[in-house]
């Protein structure tokens, strides 16, 4: 079957999609967007987290046909997505380098806090953490733990990830006050 949906603001279409295929497979294997990772294919790890009509979901558990006509944001579109949010709230527009959107604040914070080791869990964590900051600009530690409870990381022990989200939240707060 053929499916159409918007990914990171651009209309995409994929042909010859098998009816039982997941949104994750279509993104990675048919649309050339390998940022969302495939680790467990059973909803346990969160490394495939994308936003479907704004809501964080495991792309491995969404049938491709269920995404028809909907809007998907993947880690590849996170910087642009966060940039639009900053502009809406009157903050600085996203910096861009050579026409490419710069990193989203949450991405920069992961780097600065040392929250990336092998990096396999990172795209899913970034999408989940960015959605938290969208919804709750000033999250408590409990809020962060809850929002990220569906994302597994085998490397970092999570403390640096907590640091990164706190850092992004405080930078976002400063930017909004400026």
């Amino acid at each position, binding site marked *: *079957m053929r499916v159409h949906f918007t990914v990171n603001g651009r209309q995409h279409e994929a042909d010859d999609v*098998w*009816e*039982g295929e*997941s949104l994750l497979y279509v993104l990675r294997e048919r649309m050339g967007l390998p940022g969302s990772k495939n680790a467990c*294919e*059973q*909803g*346990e790890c*969160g490394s495939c*987290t994308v936003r479907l009509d704004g*809501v*964080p*979901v*495991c792309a*491995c*558990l*969404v*049938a491709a*046909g*269920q995404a*028809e006509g909907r809007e998907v944001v993947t880690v590849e579109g996170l910087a642009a997505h966060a940039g639009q949010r900053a502009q809406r709230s009157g903050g600085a527009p996203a910096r861009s380098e050579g026409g490419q959107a710069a990193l989203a604040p949450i991405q920069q914070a992961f780097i600065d806090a040392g929250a990336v080791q092998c990096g396999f869990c990172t795209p899913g964590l970034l999408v*989940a953490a960015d959605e938290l900051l969208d919804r709750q600009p000033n999250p408590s530690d409990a809020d962060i733990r*809850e*929002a990220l*409870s*569906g*994302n597994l990381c085998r490397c970092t022990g999570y403390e640096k990830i907590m640091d990164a989200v706190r850092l992004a939240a405080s930078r976002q707060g400063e930017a909004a006050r400026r």
Partner: protein
Amino acid sequence: MDFLRPASWEDALAAKAEHPAAVPIAGGTDVMVEINFGHRRPEHLLDLGRIEELATWETDRDTVRLGAGVPYTKIMESLRAELPGLALASHTVASPQIRNRGGVGGNLGTASPAGDAHPALLAAGAEVEAESVRGSRLIPIDAFYTGVKRNALAPDELIRAVRIRKARGPQQFSKVGTRNAMVIAVCAFAIALYPAERRVRTGIGSAAPTPVRAEEAEAFLAAALDEERLWDSGARIAPSLAEKFAGLCAAACDPIDDVRGTADYRRHAVGVMARRTLTWTWEAYRAAPAADRREGGAV
């Protein structure tokens, strides 16, 4: 495989009548795991995601008619006051990503003994609104679970909604697992107090081939509370009474040993949860003003 995408409820019922073996897919959090691992290769997938009324709920004075596709996240956010037991149970399901997609219709469709909605629905005395092109019927939750991962739906039926009476007394839900997120229940327990009717209902998960109520424990407790006039006095429940109730709840289990826990452990843990949740709900009942207590309006 065919992907059926009905735009309306009527179309969905017609499709299910035409293809009774079609597998409905709502949030997909059970169905897609089975497809990804090749455990299921249905000829037809019936996507219910486009049917708006499944994703909404209606309330009247006494009841919530919860659309089969309302995700757990919405239940937690919007129905905590009306359905406290189910909201607590929803919060223990998996992770935010799963709760954003999965819902009660899918939990009932799978009818796993470990599904977290079931104990809360049993304690709340819910009714499942099943519909087909032949018509609509209400299945009492006590008659819904017919075996391990089996339910009372006919092949051409879909779940339209679950009808749940609004809480008229304190409710609690408790679940044992190895961590707070992403655990299938080792066992689970739900309790609801009905002060106006002087009754208590329970639900036990993951400790028998199907979700079950502890009916003997309920009857014992109702009689004991009456006899000691505790509904009126609002006095504390004696530890010995709570222990007896806990023991009867444990005895209502018919558990197995498996990777998540032994049968003995499950019986023990159900007893502990029964005692604790009884204490929590009873303390909430006692804390309500006496006038509210008499009207049974305390939540």
